[in-house]
């Protein structure tokens, strides 16, 4: 455990972007709140207020989450490759830390540490922005943005998202690690080429598209796997009837915890992920050169 703490600290030294990017996003939002034009519609009802608050919290959260996902993917592709590129892998390997520990520390940084950093950044940003707008716009908006219950639900949603995306996308994150551990150059290109070649190959030789289908299920099937049907029906109802903004009674009713963790697809993905992680460790043991 001690080694993991040092290794994660090391990732912060190497990748300052882990905290610089969320700081910049949060800083920009705070600046907008400070100097931007506050023009919230008159909030006439509790339901409407809740919707406004939700839209606000949701937008901030979604922004952080999307940027985080892109950054985490880039980080995974780079982390093991960078050690070989600058040849520092020989220094790291001169220390009594196993390659498995190293690889797992990088995985943990990508799926636990980085999301937690963004989570904290999103929280601080929402609190700061809500506070600033409340002061500027007066008491009318204040009640809308300071809904403790809603805020708590968003916290749970974040934690649920961090947990479920880490599990659901494990085959993807592990695949990126494997490429990072293997490629001699152009990691981004190499991350795209093998699946593309498999899809085209399958189509060419067999005329089927099983791989493409499985891949799209994995990449785009997350919402369906981790959230209940309530979400979809609410979303379509909102889209069809945009005049009256509906509010989800309870964000938590959208989460499908038991469904997600009892699904075959979830655990099949975990199995593939573990196999790819073992492959990454084996490559890390053998590859010291670019």
């Amino acid at each position, binding site marked *: 455990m*001690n*080694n993991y*703490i*040092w290794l994660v*600290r*090391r990732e912060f*030294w*190497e990748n300052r972007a882990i905290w610089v990017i969320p700081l910049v996003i949060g800083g920009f939002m705070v600046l907008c709140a400070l100097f931007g034009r506050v023009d919230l519609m008159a909030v006439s009802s509790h339901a409407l207020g809740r919707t406004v608050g939700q839209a606000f919290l949701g937008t901030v959260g979604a922004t952080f989450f999307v940027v985080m996902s892109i950054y985490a993917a880039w980080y995974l592709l780079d982390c093991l490759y960078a*050690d070989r590129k*600058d*040849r*520092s*892998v*020989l*220094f790291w*390997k*001169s*220390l*009594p*830390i*196993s*390659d498995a*520990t190293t690889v797992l520390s990088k995985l943990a940084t990508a799926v636990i540490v980085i999301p937690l950093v963004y989570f904290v950044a999103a929280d601080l940003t929402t609190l700061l922005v809500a506070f600033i707008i409340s002061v500027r716009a007066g008491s009318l908006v204040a009640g809308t943005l300071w809904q403790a219950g809603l805020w708590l639900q968003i916290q749970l949603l974040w934690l649920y998202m961090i947990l479920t995306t880490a599990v659901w996308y494990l085959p993807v994150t592990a695949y990126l690690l494997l490429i990072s551990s293997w490629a001699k150059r152009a990691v981004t290109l190499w991350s795209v080429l093998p699946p593309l070649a498999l899809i085209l190959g399958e189509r060419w030789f067999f005329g089927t598209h099983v791989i493409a289908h499985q891949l799209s299920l994995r990449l785009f099937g997350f919402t369906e796997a981790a959230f209940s049907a309530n979400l979809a029906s609410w979303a379509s109802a909102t889209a069809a009837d945009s005049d009256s903004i509906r509010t989800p009674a309870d964000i938590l009713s959208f989460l499908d915890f038991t469904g997600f963790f009892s699904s075959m697809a979830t655990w099949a993905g975990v199995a593939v992920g573990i196999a790819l992680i073992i492959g990454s460790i084996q490559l890390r*043991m*053998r590859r*010291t050169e670019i």
Partner: protein
Amino acid sequence: MPALIEARDLTKKYGSHVALDRASFSVEGGRIVGLIGPNGAGKTSALRAILGLTAYEGQLRVLGREPFRDRTALMQDASFIADVAVLPGWLRIEDAVDFVAGVHPRFRRDRAAALLAKTEIAGRRRMRELSKGMKTQVHLALTMGIDAKLLVLDEPTLGLDILARRAFYDALVNDYMDETRTILITTHQVEEVENLLTDVLFIDKGRIVLDSSLDDISVRYTAIAVGPDHIDAARAQKPFYERRVLGKTVLYYEHPDMEKLAELGEVHTPSVSDLFVAKLSGDAT
């Protein structure tokens, strides 16, 4: 006591290229061993195998362990600097010290700090801001701070000026080396290290061509410089190599008849670098 490093038929292939060709050698504890060979001879492959950085064929035990399988445990007792300074550019010196102190149970922070203090490089600086020589010195301080039974150095002084190189080797012998440690070192500057080596391993084309202590070398090998008038008599004693220097000819012998040679001129024990040249050139012809 079993040898610290025991290699038997150590073989490493890269595709069809054979970097190590059934190399067998052993290194005893408490020695300073020079692994000496021309470029591409297999030095780096041998060191990589010893340090568990690469898979190999044949038998290899280092400190009683199989290096590739047990690298993590091995690195508790062995430390190394492979090639040139490889500390990452983003790393601050003080962070590097903290990190090694954090993960290495045998790291003696006071010793590393003392070595770093001598370099007068500020701890807040990142590796990328340092010159090559400074980087190497930081790396050496980190490595020598580890209380290792085996220290492996691959071209440790590359990029250092003469003063720094001399200071490094002095520190290595006076401050670091004791009877509990073993040092395995490769370098192209053989002249610089031959005074501190106790043993040499000559490697050529993936094979060990000489595995000997310097004491044995002085018993086993002899060189003599003769003028043209004695050259035929000297050749009659079967030298394995000869070369011309300033009008004289230097001839190299293994286990010669010392009495006969002494009649021809002044005999001396060849230096490690001369013996290396003689051995590799002589055996090739």
